[in-house]
């Protein structure tokens, strides 16, 4: 059992937790993720390790469907049934001078450890952060500690530009050049960002979040096609250079269980409320 030692509500959809998991914490590197099971019947939920110290790790999760809502019912002092990790390959930190981070929604969480690592190595870091509303812009204070400029985009215009992160990026590319962009967010956002960046010749890394079960390369559920080759996101990624990723295929794969997910969410959480 793994104790939740601290919990914060970041906005109506997103929460933060610190979990005591020494073996996950000890070997964790930027880009690694973990898998949580809330209770003994729970689904295995993959979540990025946002920060870690000697004993514990922090996660940021969006209450999306059944399992993340179940997780959100847990409070500080409660225990999680399973936490395993660190999983995946650490982010490949490239030898560059300027980086643009592009975060969509809860993508700000997985982007954080990578971007911070670049900044720690003296790289100039700019960030575009997007969300539904002002309240949905995550980790802004934390990012402010090491980003040169932060630009905002919200769906409703409550902060920064009204619209998508890609629109902000396109404007930036008129004035700035970046050696690398790292885009993390919903698949459709990453896809469009990569298309845009191609136009402006900006190299892009992304972090993929396909459906996973074991997270150890055993099941093949997480596979993605990259340049015609199959990769397992849990062991070969989750970070990849964006070049050649078949995002359309991945989006269909990610939606395979939509019907079941909606069903269980209505059925179980609906009934309990």
């Amino acid at each position: 059992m793994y104790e939740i030692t601290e919990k914060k509500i970041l906005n109506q959809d997103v929460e933060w937790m610190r979990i005591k998991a020494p073996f996950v914490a000890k070997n964790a590197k930027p880009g690694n993720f973990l898998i949580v099971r809330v209770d003994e019947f729970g689904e295995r939920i993959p979540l990025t390790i946002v920060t870690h110290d000697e004993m514990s790790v922090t996660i940021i999760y969006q209450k999306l469907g059944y399992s993340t809502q179940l997780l959100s019912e847990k409070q500080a002092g409660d225990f999680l049934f399973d936490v395993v990790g660190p999983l995946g390959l650490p982010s490949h930190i490239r030898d560059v001078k300027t980086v643009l981070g592009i975060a969509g929604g809860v993508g700000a969480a997985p982007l954080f450890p990578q971007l911070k690592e670049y900044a720690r190595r003296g790289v100039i870091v700019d960030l575009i952060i997007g969300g539904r509303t002002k309240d949905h812009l995550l980790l802004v204070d934390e990012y402010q500690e090491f980003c040169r400029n932060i630009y905002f985009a919200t769906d409703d215009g409550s902060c920064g530009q009204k619209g998508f992160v890609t629109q902000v990026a396109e404007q930036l590319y008129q004035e700035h050049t970046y050696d690398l962009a790292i885009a993390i967010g919903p698949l459709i956002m990453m896809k469009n960002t990569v298309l845009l960046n191609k136009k402006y010749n900006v190299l892009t890394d992304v972090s993929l979040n396909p459906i996973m079960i074991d997270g150890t390369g055993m099941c093949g559920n997480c596979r993605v096609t990259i340049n015609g080759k199959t990769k397992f996101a849990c062991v070969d990624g989750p970070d990849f250079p964006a070049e050649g990723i078949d995002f359309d295929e991945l989006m269909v794969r990610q939606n395979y269980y939509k019907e079941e997910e909606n069903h269980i969410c209505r059925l179980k959480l609906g009934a309990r409320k």
Partner: protein
Amino acid sequence: MRADRTKMPVQDPEIRNCNFDEVALGYTPELAMLEASRCLECKNPRCVSACPVNIDIPGFIKHIKDANIEEAYHTIYQSNILPAICGRVCPQETQCEGSCILGIKSKSVAIGALERYVGDYALKQNLSIQEEISEKEEKVAIIGSGPAGIACSASLRRLGYQVDVFEALHEFGGVLKYGIPDFRLPKEIVDKEIQNAKDLGVQFHKNMIVGKSITIDQLLHEYHYKSIFIGSGAGLPKSLGIPGENMTGIYFANEFLTRVNLMKANRFPAAPTPVRIGNNVAIVGGGNVAMDAARTAKRLGAKNVFVLYRRDMTALPARQEEVEHAIEEQIDFRLLRNPVEFIGENYVVKQVKCEVMILGDPDESGRRSPVGTNTFETFDIDSCIISIGQSPNPILKSATPELEVDRRGRIIVSNHQTSIPGVFAGGDVVSGAATVILAMGAGKEAAISMDQFIRERA
């Protein structure tokens, strides 16, 4: 002397292909006695040498004849701590039973069924073996809680070592848990037999991926384990490598079986992990994994489940009993068909295109090898489950560069020792996908080498 082998009662095929309860129901005491009476108690029993762990087969059968099942259990337990499991899943026809003298003229003794009977009796009666263990101080680590790891851990514990088993998943048992379905091997049986190892004092740790959560180097130098056994199995699924394989609706057997066996997707929504296969399901492959996938798909309600296999019926590598049960459960065998392409719409699979094969000259496995005919046939499908084999998971290797593996990722050993002194390995990770009992045999033997290693170093 009775010539007829005693049949084990089974659930009716029409009923069982809708439930996940065990198919084979096990002998009653009368049936066990009847079957035991067929054994000749050979002086030089051929069956014993054909069992990878050399169970004293005539010995335990004699105890059944004497109605002393407890003693029969003790006899088996000397060589095999998982009798209720092996009695169910061993490919007996190619091992013990395949060599039974009675098999020459009529039918071999049903050794597996008798072993299962004894194993089940022990579980039901809660028979425990009281062993005196003279404790040693040295710690040993076991990677993986499959049959190889369990067997190795028990053997080392009996020698007095402090044994820690590290398992990547959230449950123990390896393939016994996530691969082999309930209707063939109920999970309570796996848990109870693992409990035996726990009762010996073996410590099991879940959620520990060696190579990620902890490394071999840390185990040896930071946590001071004197020796390590790697029993991490062959968990990496092989792909067909044909166009369209990553469309939705196409599963590797590991994903499909893990969803159902480990995550209990058959109970969705009571269990939150779903599985979806539709009505027309193609299974690719002909081994145990393929049979398990096919029969599981049927139980989930698929109307038409068919097996695409590139050779003929005689070449199916699955256990004979599984093939027979699959046929009874209306699994359709479409033989001499080799998938060459998946055809879909908008990334959702709709059809599988197969080449029609014929059998040519024997290959190195001794079986006639399939040859393409350049004629093709296409089947409509809602989903496809690929079950064509597995190789070792590369996580450990990539975290431990000095660990030598062969071209197919299998760990190279000499006398069970790997290229790293003090680190041993056995089971599927060394042999490639094989059997439960071979993995256990390897785990047991490795334990002896580990003991030797530690004592020489002391």
